[in-house]
């Protein structure tokens, strides 16, 4: 169990939240122009790192808002929390997905 700082409600217990998925996965502009491999990459392939990971969480039992969390998957340390639509901290930003327009 660890605490997650909701951008609205402040620090709350992890059990109040639900994990969504990896953040900043942008839908390709022209899916029909992609190869099957590139489309599959967009749909299914995730980074799954041991270390810092950008992900989406929702404060299910609280304000029910989605937001971004940068979390170390190894230690559960929360490195940053930022709102939807905001860019990740520069030191944590990752390479964009191929075929995606960021």
């Amino acid at each position, binding site marked *: 169990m660890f605490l997650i700082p909701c951008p*609205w*409600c402040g620090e709350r217990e992890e059990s*109040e939240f639900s994990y969504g998925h990896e953040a900043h996965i942008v839908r390709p502009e022209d899916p029909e122009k992609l190869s099957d491999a590139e489309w599959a990459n967009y749909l299914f392939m995730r980074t799954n790192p041991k270390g810092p990971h950008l992900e989406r969480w929702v404060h299910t*039992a609280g304000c*029910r*808002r989605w937001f971004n969390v940068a979390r170390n998957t190894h230690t559960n340390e929360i490195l940053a929390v930022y709102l939807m639509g905001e860019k990740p901290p520069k030191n944590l930003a990752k390479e964009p997905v191929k075929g995606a327009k960021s």
Partner: protein
Amino acid sequence: MIDTYRLRSPLAHLGLDARARAEADISGTGVIISERPQAGLINIRGDVSDARFVTAIEKSIKLSPPTVPNTVVGKPSTTRLMWLAPDEWMVITRPSGAERALKALQKNLKIADLHSSVTDTTEARTCIRVSGPRAREVISKGCSIDLHPSAFGPGQCAQTVVSRVGVMLAQTANSKTHQPTYELYPLRSFATYLWNWLEDASAEYGVKVE
């Protein structure tokens, strides 16, 4: 508005009125719990940065939507406005004031012609009040929020989990005896479970029904 004859407390089967009469002497009791008469609960959503939205609400219930997360404005004895999310609030009225508040909000937000919503959720939840010198300890047994007076007091609210039940939690102004009073608003299908849990959690301090 829902026909009044259909309104029935989710805790009606517990016979709380009879217990309250039998336990009228509450002196020396650690925890006093009671179910409040069905308050009006009206959910509002809209853009608080739009002055027309704020004006329409002020015109309807004479309160401005709070923008500080997890705060409540207004008096428990009349109408309150509770922050639920950056674009979502709950109007809590006295049982008799629900219909008038609902109609005024619907009318004024319709006139303002905004992207907003007003939903009567009165029957979705009930209100359980927990008070007494040990009230804070009891709720803390099932709730991870810091309820110490330095962190949580009257005028603040939270949507959180108490013993695995999602509730709206608010501390109302301290009662006449200067003891903390909390209100828990669980969904009605969880009300019996939460009530039973509260009674069990309060047993060691002495519990009575008001």
